[in-house]
């Protein structure tokens, strides 16, 4: 049984909206194990982003406990938290958030700067990560010369820079067209399958969420529903459509010919 990488107990978060307190999260419990690919869904204002911010150590819980890799981060000071973010977390943003004046490789190198001293090592590692997301040969391109999908892949490589315990993705497909959306979901699923990277993804998009292994529905600051996704079967090398045996390299089921990753066929729009 894989060990828990994230444990949240009785987490509450209260904002002050003027003089009125707003409960963004209420007594929330959640455990994510290592190697899981989880989607957090919910309508606007349900607390998705607040939850992601608290997990990502960029916001603090009002009450409750957040354990990351066994470390209690809920009461840590900022001068400790930045190290947790750097070493344990990888962020993927809806708007990619690449630095426009740095090329793809330099963007990927950024999080390593405080951690890996050797410049050549950083360079080598960044190139490897870019190759992993399918961007070898594009290392020296600036963000403006890359397509939206390519930019998001650079952002994924950047999130992997320091080998984080968890990748947090905030609407990673929100700014992408259908084709690129499928590409990114595929890259994330591959990362999860091939490297065992834990991914927590916040999304509005039920089709994207359907390709994770576990879907959580958040409503009024509570997890109200939990559901299995298509990804779970793939982890067991089974086709989620017909149940026949598949391998990691397959893009479609060898027997039923259904696509195994997000595609237009299974998500008719």
């Amino acid at each position, binding site marked *: 049984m894989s060990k828990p990488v994230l444990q949240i107990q009785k987490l509450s978060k209260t904002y002050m909206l003027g003089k009125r307190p707003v409960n963004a999260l209420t007594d929330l419990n959640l455990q994510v194990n290592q190697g899981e690919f989880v989607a957090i869904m919910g309508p606007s204002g349900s607390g998705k982003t607040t939850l992601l911010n608290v997990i990502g150590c*960029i916001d603090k819980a009002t009450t409750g406990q957040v354990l990351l890799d066994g470390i209690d981060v809920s009461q840590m000071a900022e001068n400790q938290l930045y190290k947790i*973010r*750097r070493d344990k977390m990888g962020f993927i943003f809806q708007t990619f958030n690449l630095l426009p004046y740095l090329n793809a490789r330099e963007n990927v190198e*950024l999080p390593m700067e405080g951690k890996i001293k050797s410049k050549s090592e950083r360079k080598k590692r960044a190139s490897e990560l870019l190759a992993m997301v399918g961007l070898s040969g594009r290392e020296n391109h600036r963000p403006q010369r890359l397509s939206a999908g390519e930019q998001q892949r650079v952002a994924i490589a950047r999130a992997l820079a320091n080998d984080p315990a968890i990748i947090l993705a905030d609407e990673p497909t929100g700014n992408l067209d259908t084709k690129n959306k499928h590409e990114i979901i595929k890259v994330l699923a591959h990362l999860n399958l091939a490297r065992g990277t834990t991914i927590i993804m916040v999304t509005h998009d039920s089709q994207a969420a359907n390709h994770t292994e576990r879907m959580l529905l958040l409503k009024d600051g509570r997890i109200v529903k939990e559901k299995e996704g298509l990804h779970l079967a793939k982890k067991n090398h089974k086709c989620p459509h017909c149940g026949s045996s598949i391998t990691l390299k397959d893009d479609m089921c060898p027997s039923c010919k259904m696509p195994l990753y997000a595609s237009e066929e299974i998500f008719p729009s």
Partner: protein
Amino acid sequence: MAIMISIPAGVMANQQTANELANNLSDTINQTGQSINETLIQIDCSLASDFAGFGFRPPDSSSFTPGQGGFVPGQGSNGGEIPPNFDPSQFGGGVMPGRFGGGSFGGGEANPMNESLYTDINSIDGVAAVAPMLQVSEGQNVTREFMDRSFTILVPDYVIQGIPLTSELIDKYSILPSNITAGRNLNAGETGVVVLSQNNSAFFDAGIGDSITILNQTFTVVGIHGGTGVSDQTSLYMNLNDAQTVTNNTGYITSLRVFTDSSDVVSQVANDIGELHSELTVSTGQERLTQLQQIQSTYDAVLENAQASVNSTQMVALEEIIVVVAATSLIVLFVMLYTVRERTKEIGTLKAIGFSNATVMGQFMLEGVLLSVIAGVVGIVIGTVAAPTLSSLLLPSVNLFSGSTGGFVMRGAGATTTVASVSLELILLAFGAALLLGAIGSLYPAWRAAKIRPAEAMKYE
């Protein structure tokens, strides 16, 4: 910002010029003070030169041009013979055609006087000595247009000063050039020798011991005088007899300097001279003293002004520096605040992916300092190129002092050309200032950047 850094260059030049001006004025005032003491027992008598005189018709003159007014052109050294018995005083002013007419406007060269007509002054009670003098300008005639009329004026190359070289006079009274800078002064009874001014020395291209030709006669240079006033700068001194011979003025002089027994009898003697020779313009030491005192008080006022100007320039300089420092810091501040605001999302991203507050702050400080250093370098380049123009724009008040006051030219005051030069020291100063101001100006924006919450990275455009 570049321009602002170049302003202190102009300010510094401004101060320097004002200081120089003040020093020059003090020198002039000291010299004026000396003249006042020497002048106490003097009475100067001459026939007034009257540029505005009309109706003067000189005998035997073929060169007179009617309708040219009083300022009749001089004819240089070869024209206008003066008949030996001609007494111009009977014509009541006016200007002789001939070389006497060609004085400079400011100089007020006197008309020739028949020396023999004034021997009676010697016998007036209280007169200790009488020094007859001859002053003749030599130079080129130049035609100038003025109000639709053409005038020929003499632009003097040099002024011959004939001094009576009797031992009685030169031992007791200061009639010789006082400021000998090379060689020696004239001796009693000496002929065929001259003392040149520095300007003369350059004009004749001659030094001590050299022979020069003045109006076809040869003289030996025995000394160089430094001059005590601007009119003196073109004067060469020689024996009165030599001067009269060489300028064809035997028996003629242009002024009489009367020395009295004491300063108490000066006004009485002046009255007596006036009664004896009503045609003479008589000015006593007392009158000259009053004049000089007026000039001195003018100088004092000017000096006071100059010092006030120095003080106010220093104040202005200080104010300017404060303004420049404040403005530069504020510009850096606002530029950096704007930058931080523009890049909130980028900063949020950096913090979300693991940059510490200190790193972010350092990054923005560095950026602010770099920005202002680049601007500083541009400013130094512009400042170096523009400083001369800029300083002349900043210094109109100082230039007002140039020129002459009452015939006395303030030496040095107007001659100081104000050119702000940009020194290495100033460049280093500007560079250091840019560094410091960049750091000060970006301190707060950098702090603001560090305080940006990483959650800002999540916000959409």
